[in-house]
């Protein structure tokens, strides 16, 4: 079905040929063939874990396929490492930043590509000049001598792109490049890609954002559970079809109902978190959340979201006031706040949301292990814990052989369900949620969103921090924007609009931007 029509389409610059790859029992790819044609803009889409990154890693020489191989310009080529791929004209921006935080931008660019004199001394001057040329050509303004650690996210993304241009790529692969960017920054990125394409470079884009696919791609490939299931021309398809192709069935559309009640459940006044040196990381933030209301927090990451959450939950010292159940809780520790009905779903599943090596049951009771629900006189009540866990596993559809399975062995989506089950089963009066769907696939996302909405309808006040605007817009009754530690704008549900919120996120005032 994906056999290309060689007569009409331009020639393939590179090609994955019948590739299969398994990680232990997981079949990440099964007999997948993908070709990239000269000068095209190809989009590769699919659910979490569909195998997109794996396919590109094989093309790029980072993984060895179990079966099948790579062809460059029609010839089979063994890719032993990324070095071979780079030599063959491939360049890749990876899903996670591949940068060295304590090195300068210039050093980041040249690692692995160093020109040296006979002494082995790096010819920095020449490297600098070459890098400067690229910066000028693409209107990037990055200081080559700054440490990458000091750069904002979009500049880091630019460093990644310069890295690949520096190596003279004729095929550019980008794995979810816009996940960390604001809408404005994304637009700039796509402009730049268009320019590259105009110069004859082929582009391969992996993304979950179907709008971006529709706006930019020429051709679209869909991966599902390790198999290539569809190929579409961008002109001949639409978002709904693509979504269905990805998931393999109709997706349920969840309808948001307003459950807001008049009484304030959480009241925040002048909440400030100071850093050791410099200015406040969170500056005099004030807002109220009513019962049944979902208050969304938008913002480019690193603008005070973490501090806000920590201050609310009790993980960080703060000034100001936080009223919960009619009490100021700022002086209280995490346990005391939990006892007053505060729940917390941490974004960092790996370390904070779950104890990975612990069993599912152990994870499910954490935070309430000392209550009479699960223990008496300092000893755990094994039977009650077991029954409770089994009940939650059934109710939240956690796919696991038993409650004594280690959390680390669950898939990402199921891990997140454990966190959700634990926090929801505590019946919190106020719940703080951070990026509940990071790295979770579409099916699980729908499930988690439904649970969150149900909780709100039952009267829980929810603070939802998310870097995914779609998610925020779908769930929130109001959205506040954090910029540079300040709450710069609050949008009512009716006013929600990606461009306007994006503008606020990047520092423009609401009134002028809208």
């Amino acid at each position: 079905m994906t056999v290309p029509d060689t007569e009409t389409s331009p020639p393939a610059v590179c090609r994955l040929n019948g590739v299969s790859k398994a990680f232990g029992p997981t079949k990440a790819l099964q007999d997948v063939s993908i070709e990239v044609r000269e000068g095209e803009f190809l989009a590769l889409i699919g659910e979490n874990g569909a195998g997109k990154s794996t396919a590109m890693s094989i093309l790029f020489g980072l993984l060895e396929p179990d079966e099948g191989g790579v062809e460059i310009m029609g010839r089979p080529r063994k890719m032993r490492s990324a070095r071979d791929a780079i030599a063959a004209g491939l360049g890749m921006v990876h899903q996670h930043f591949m940068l060295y935080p304590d090195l300068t931008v210039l050093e980041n660019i040249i690692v692995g590509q160093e020109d040296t004199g006979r002494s082995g001394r790096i010819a920095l001057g020449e490297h600098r000049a070459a890098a400067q040329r690229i910066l000028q050509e693409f209107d990037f303004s990055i200081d080559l001598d700054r440490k990458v650690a000091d750069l904002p996210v979009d500049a880091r993304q630019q460093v990644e792109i310069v890295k690949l241009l520096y190596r003279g790529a004729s095929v550019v692969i980008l794995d979810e490049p816009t996940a960390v960017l604001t809408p404005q920054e994304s637009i700039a990125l796509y402009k730049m890609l268009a320019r590259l394409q105009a110069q004859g470079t082929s582009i391969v884009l992996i993304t979950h954002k179907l709008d971006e696919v529709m706006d930019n791609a020429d051709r679209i490939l869909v991966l599902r559970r390790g198999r290539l299931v569809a190929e579409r021309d961008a002109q001949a398809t639409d978002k709904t079809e693509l979504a269905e192709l990805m998931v393999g069935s109709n997706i349920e559309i969840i309808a948001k109902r307003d459950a807001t009640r008049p009484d304030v459940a959480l009241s925040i006044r002048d909440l400030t978190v100071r850093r050791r040196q410099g200015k406040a990381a969170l500056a005099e933030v004030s807002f109220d959340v009513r019962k049944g209301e979902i208050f969304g927090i938008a913002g480019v990451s690193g603008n005070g979201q973490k501090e806000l959450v920590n201050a609310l939950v009790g993980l960080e010292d703060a000034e100001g006031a936080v009223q919960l159940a009619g009490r100021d809780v700022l002086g209280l520790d995490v346990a005391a706040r939990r006892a007053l009905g505060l729940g917390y779903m941490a974004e960092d599943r790996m370390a904070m949301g779950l104890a990975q090596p612990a069993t599912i049951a152990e994870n499910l009771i954490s935070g309430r292990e000392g209550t009479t629900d699960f223990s008496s006189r300092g000893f755990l009540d094994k039977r009650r814990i077991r029954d409770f866990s089994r009940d939650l596993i059934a109710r939240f559809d956690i796919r696991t052989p038993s409650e004594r399975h280690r959390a680390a062995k669950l898939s990402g989506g199921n891990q997140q369900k454990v966190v959700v089950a634990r926090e929801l089963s505590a019946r919190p009066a106020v719940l703080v949620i951070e990026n509940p769907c990071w790295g979770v696939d579409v099916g699980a996302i729908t499930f988690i969103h439904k649970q969150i909405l149900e909780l709100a309808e039952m009267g829980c006040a929810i603070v939802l921090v998310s870097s995914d605007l779609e998610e925020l817009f779908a769930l929130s009754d109001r959205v506040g924007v954090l910029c540079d530690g300040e709450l710069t704008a609050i949008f009512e549900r009716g006013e929600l609009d990606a461009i306007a919120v994006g503008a606020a996120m990047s520092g423009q005032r609401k009134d002028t931007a809208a």
Partner: protein
Amino acid sequence: MFFDAALIESIPRLFTPVLLAAIGSALCDRANVFNIALEGMMLIGAFAAVVGTFYTGNALAGLGLAIVSGALSGLVFAYFGVTRGGDHIIVSIGFNVLAIGLTAFLLGRIFGVSGQFDDPAIVQLPRIHLGPVADIPLIGPFVSGQSILVWLAIFLVVAVTWLLKNHKYGLRLRAAGQNAAAMRTVGVSPERVKTAAVIACGVLCAMGGAQLSISNVTLFTEGMSAGRGWIALVIMMMCSARLPWILPTAILFGLVDAFGFRMQGLGLPQQLTESMPYVLAIVVLMLVFRKRTARYAR
């Protein structure tokens, strides 16, 4: 008569083993290898130096064998800690015990003795005498008549600093320590870089051991590294692996060690003077790390 020529002369020979190991430790740290097997690597180097010198009658050959043994030590560490991906702390603990056992075992097998081996055939590493400079008060004894390793160690501080900053492999070493996955994406094997760092560290530690066994004295005793590897680690940590700081810090510890011997002359109990380097290490670490966000505290 406290600051006499002998005290000053003793400082370089006391700080050199620690300095060499600390440089090696810094390389590992930059490559993000938490090598706390310096102690064992020094011990093996000290032993190999004695073996090499005894059989050839040439201390430079002894140093050569020490260097080879250090490279092998590094290779063993790298095999378990890098190639097989073992936990560095556990590998280090295993390696240190291995070094104690292996040197004692080989001492018996090769020389048929236990505890200690000395022999007139074990000669000292060449020393560099600076002629008239030796007569300058204070400075003279400090710089003249010291073993070649003292100078090599000081030279290495400069050379390695330069290498890390300007050389291709220096850059790769720093890069591998920061983000190994990123190196792979540009086609450089971070494992290879880390292995090189550990081997270099093994060589440096072994040279430190050689300074102990064929320069400070000309014999081998079981456990003769006597905690110096740990002091070297602490020095490296205090200086956050910055070499220009490591040199003066190592000299400070050499000074404290040298003073320790003198303090006994003042009637202080020997056990008190001997715990001084360790107590000093704790106190200095506390002062240095107090304001730091716990880098090593995970």
